[in-house]
């Protein structure tokens, strides 16, 4: 290799998991290099001040790499369309920062029912709790403490985002029914922090945040990681993870601006390229000794892909709700139906999350469900009745980890560097279809209790069309209990290669019925702490220890 450099830990991917890892390691003085295929995002590259801000969601700020077609993106093929962003911050550049935690029961779904590929997590909520707290403090969570439906959580950096008229209205609906509900935790500053401005309730969270109120990792973790001396290389697309004698030795990457290849040699490699990019890279790293891809001797890399099962329910009411204000996707949530009740005909449960809408154009163009204002004579009446009279209730269900829902390599299509792209296959399980159908009815009950509802529309089961919309991409390299049931042990160490770790959303064993990022970052912080404390053990291991034998913190 023409050029190479050396480091202690090589992190691949500068998104949610990779940033948390890089920062935590470098806090402890570990020398870290991070390779990221995308670049930095400039605050002026957000659409919030343009007159076409609503339309930009279909172009520059599309959630879909296949639609944006930026050079740093890689296409995907298959029957599902995973949404992701590639750059410093990863998909958090696009995320809304809804910040619930998994519940204790979520770590024990194998015990509870074990349906399809469901297994217990190798760790418990209690194991993860300290790392949730560390991560919450880093990102500056907005929170109202006291939710009786969850274990106690520490005070937020700031108070919960205000709920506006939508929050008051839907809160009354849940109250009327006697159902659980609570203001959402958000990774959104409600109080200034480290040069990041507090949220000003602009209502457009899913176009990133030019105020840096939303904790995308380019503004939360990266400034501190860089100050710690992390060598972050952008436009650096990893092609292969290299190995020698059963251990990872580093990675070869392509500089997207010059096309040149370089190598980073490392004592430990941490993969955090997300639930699509991570299995892709492991499969592309097939080499001598690893004919089916790295860390894939049991064939589980890429399997048990989860998206959450979804339905979006738009409701319009007979009073002004001003949904163009305030946090877009997560005003409040109800977890009344979170736990499994077998009498319902399905296992697992769901959160009902209340969100808002964008502006006037989005309202005329069907809000979240394609309910488009008619053109011509009826336009004005429809618009005037619907605009800013709306609340979104979305049913976010836990989907089963199914082995055949998976990421493979599609050799027929390549990205802008000539690397084969991932093929993504996902079918909604019958259990999850039933769950969402039942959840849709509960959403409607809640809206009608808040009432009076003047109009409603739904995306139907699974989001838009068949597979659920893939913004919560989870599983594919799950942590587990044995080398037979998973890709990594409980410390995120791959079973096949002891100094290769995976710390992104692909490591989630099950997906729970809540947004995943607070949990995957807590897992990443925990793994970073482990690597830091056990560096000498890890770098001398020739075999990945079992969960029972692995040295503890």
């Amino acid at each position, binding site marked *: 290799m023409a050029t190479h450099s050396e480091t202690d830990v090589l992190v691949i991917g500068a998104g949610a998991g990779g940033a948390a890892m890089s920062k935590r390691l470098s806090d402890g003085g570990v020398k870290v290099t991070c390779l990221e295929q995308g670049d930095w995002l400039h605050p002026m590259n957000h*659409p*919030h*001040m343009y*007159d*076409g*801000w*609503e*339309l*930009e969601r*279909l172009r*520059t700020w599309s959630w879909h790499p296949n*639609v*944006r*077609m930026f050079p740093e993106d890689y296409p995907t093929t298959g029957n599902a369309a995973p949404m992701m962003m590639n750059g410093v911050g990863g998909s958090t550049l696009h995320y809304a920062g809804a910040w619930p935690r998994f519940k*204790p*029961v979520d770590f024990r779904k194998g*015990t*509870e*029912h074990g*349906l399809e590929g469901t297994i217990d997590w190798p760790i*418990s*909520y209690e194991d993860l709790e300290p790392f949730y707290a560390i991560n919450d403090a880093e990102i500056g969570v907005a929170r*109202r403490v006291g939710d*009786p*439906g*969850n274990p106690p959580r520490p005070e937020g950096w700031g108070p919960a985002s*205000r709920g*506006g008229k939508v*929050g*008051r209205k839907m*809160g*009354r609906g849940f*109250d009327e029914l*006697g159902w*659980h509900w609570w203001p959402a935790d958000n990774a959104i500053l409600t109080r200034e922090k480290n040069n990041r401005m507090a*949220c*000003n309730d*602009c*209502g*457009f969270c899913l176009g990133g945040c030019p105020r840096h109120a939303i904790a995308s990792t380019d503004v939360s973790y990266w400034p501190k990681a860089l100050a710690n001396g992390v060598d972050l290389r952008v436009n650096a697309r990893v092609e292969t993870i290299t190995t020698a004698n059963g251990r990872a030795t580093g990675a070869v990457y392509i500089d997207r601006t010059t096309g040149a290849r370089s190598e980073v040699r490392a004592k430990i490699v941490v993969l955090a390229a997300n639930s699509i990019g991570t299995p892709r890279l492991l499969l592309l790293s097939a080499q001598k000794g690893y004919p089916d891809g790295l860390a894939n001797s049991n064939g589980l890399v890429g399997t048990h892909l989860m998206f959450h099962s979804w339905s979006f329910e738009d409701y319009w009411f007979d009073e*002004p709700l001003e949904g*163009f*204000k305030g946090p877009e996707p997560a005003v409040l949530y109800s977890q*009344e139906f979170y736990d499994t009740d077998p009498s*319902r*005909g399905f*296992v697992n449960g769901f959160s009902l999350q209340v969100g808002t809408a964008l*502006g*006037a*154009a989005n309202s*005329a*163009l069907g809000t979240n469900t394609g309910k488009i*204002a008619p*053109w*011509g*004579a009826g*336009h*004005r009446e429809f618009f*005037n009745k619907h*605009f800013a009279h709306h609340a979104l209730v979305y049913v976010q269900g836990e989907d089963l980890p199914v082995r055949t829902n998976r990421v493979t390599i599609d050799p027929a299509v390549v990205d802008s560097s000539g690397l084969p792209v991932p093929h993504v296959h996902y079918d909604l399980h019958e259990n999850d279809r039933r769950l969402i159908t039942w959840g849709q009815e509960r959403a409607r009950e809640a809206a009608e209790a808040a009432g009076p509802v003047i109009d409603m529309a739904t995306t139907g089961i699974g989001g838009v069309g068949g597979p659920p919309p893939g913004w919560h991409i989870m599983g594919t390299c799950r942590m587990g209990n044995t080398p037979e049931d998973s890709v990594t042990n409980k410390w995120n160490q791959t079973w096949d290669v002891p100094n290769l770790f995976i710390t992104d959303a692909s490591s989630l064993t099950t997906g729970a019925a809540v947004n995943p990022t607070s949990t995957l970052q807590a897992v990443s912080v925990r793994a970073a702490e482990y690597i830091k404390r056990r560096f000498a053990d890890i770098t001398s291991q020739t075999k990945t220890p079992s969960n029972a034998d692995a040295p503890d913190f």
Partner: protein
Amino acid sequence: MIDVTIRSGSKPPLGGWLPPAALSAPQADVLNAIADELIPGGEGFPPPSGVNVVGFIVRYVAPSGQEAKWYPFLTEAEFARRLDELGSAFVSASSAERVQVLIGLERDDAEFFGRLRDMVYYAYYSRPEVVAAINRNLEAGRDYRNSPQPYGYTDVMDDWDDDLLSRVKGTYTRTEDVVRLPLPENLRP
């Protein structure tokens, strides 16, 4: 001289293309006439032709020399050709006749019609005069602003109802309380 042209490189330019796609005056007349039928003015709202929807739309049509890789997937040449097809006959027709033509277009070429309608909606509801009409005429839109930033809505945002929150009940299953549950009958192996 400073070159103000936004070039795409390999990304769509945020805010649209500058300089925008060029339409002739007769083509702009057709577009205005279409827009006025799609969103008729009245009830305190201006007609689209009065608020320069054309100026918005031409920024998003790919100008000559650029591929239509991104939404609305229309090139300048193709768009101009479509407008020319309707031509002055459409402009001078009565409103009822124009509506019939548009109904035909919607039926026969749903994809193009959909893009045209959506672009008119996006354009119209982005215009400051229309935002002002929303502020004036709709109670729900009193506070609505031209764009989310820089002002946001913190100054006009309602807070939580503490009374309601004090009544919330809920529970969760503790780790040690998780037990095997019987699978629903229809899901048993």
